[in-house]
């Protein structure tokens, strides 16, 4: 099974751009890459999902190189409320063999 690897923690300041990279060397052809945000004692919340190249929504951008062995979540102009744990999720397999693999998460601290 493929493993995802993310930095354990990151620090930033309000107004800066934050980039969090996830490695997934054994990603399968039909797998998507999804990022989630989690605040303490709450369930994770979907941020963005992509398959290749670049995806952008109102809260983040996701950059995926051609080989798809990594992905980078970009948060523009972070604020204190962006302090949370960010998870990279890669879907493996299909049908009954599907097992969603979660990374350990990156704890982002945004400072004033």
């Amino acid at each position, binding site marked *: 099974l493929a493993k995802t690897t993310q930095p354990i923690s990151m620090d930033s300041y309000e107004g800066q751009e934050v980039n969090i990279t996830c490695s997934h060397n054994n990603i399968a052809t039909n797998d998507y890459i999804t990022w*989630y945000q989690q605040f303490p004692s709450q369930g*994770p919340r979907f941020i963005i*999902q992509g398959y290749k190249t670049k995806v952008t929504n109102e809260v983040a951008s996701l950059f995926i190189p051609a080989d798809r062995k990594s992905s980078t979540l970009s948060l523009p102009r972070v604020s204190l409320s962006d302090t949370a744990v960010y998870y990279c999720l890669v879907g493996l397999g299909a049908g009954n063999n*599907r097992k*969603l693999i979660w990374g350990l998460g990156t704890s982002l601290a945004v400072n004033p």
Partner: protein
Amino acid sequence: EAGVTQSPTHLIKTRGQQATLRCSPISGHTSVYWYQQALGLGLQFLLWYDEGEERNRGNFPPRFSGRQFPNYSSELNVNALELEDSALYLCASSTGADSDTGELFFGEGSRLTVL
């Protein structure tokens, strides 16, 4: 539209007892996932149900079990509770096995404390 709902929000049990946690998925979703998240750790996959059947299971002992009802709600049962079962149990739903691209919708979780 209501999101994923879980009950109870908090549950306190003693070692050896049984705990039952419940989850109602978003209307129209047929897949339900259960995760365990111990304090300060990542999500550990427990169980996946779709269309009433168990589709996959994580590396947990058999005393962790569950089921999915015809209305797609789900129950997680933990028997013979141990202290290390204390955790936040998260339920998530998605549109189903065939169309699942990884977008999961989570509930707020049930906090189980074993004394």
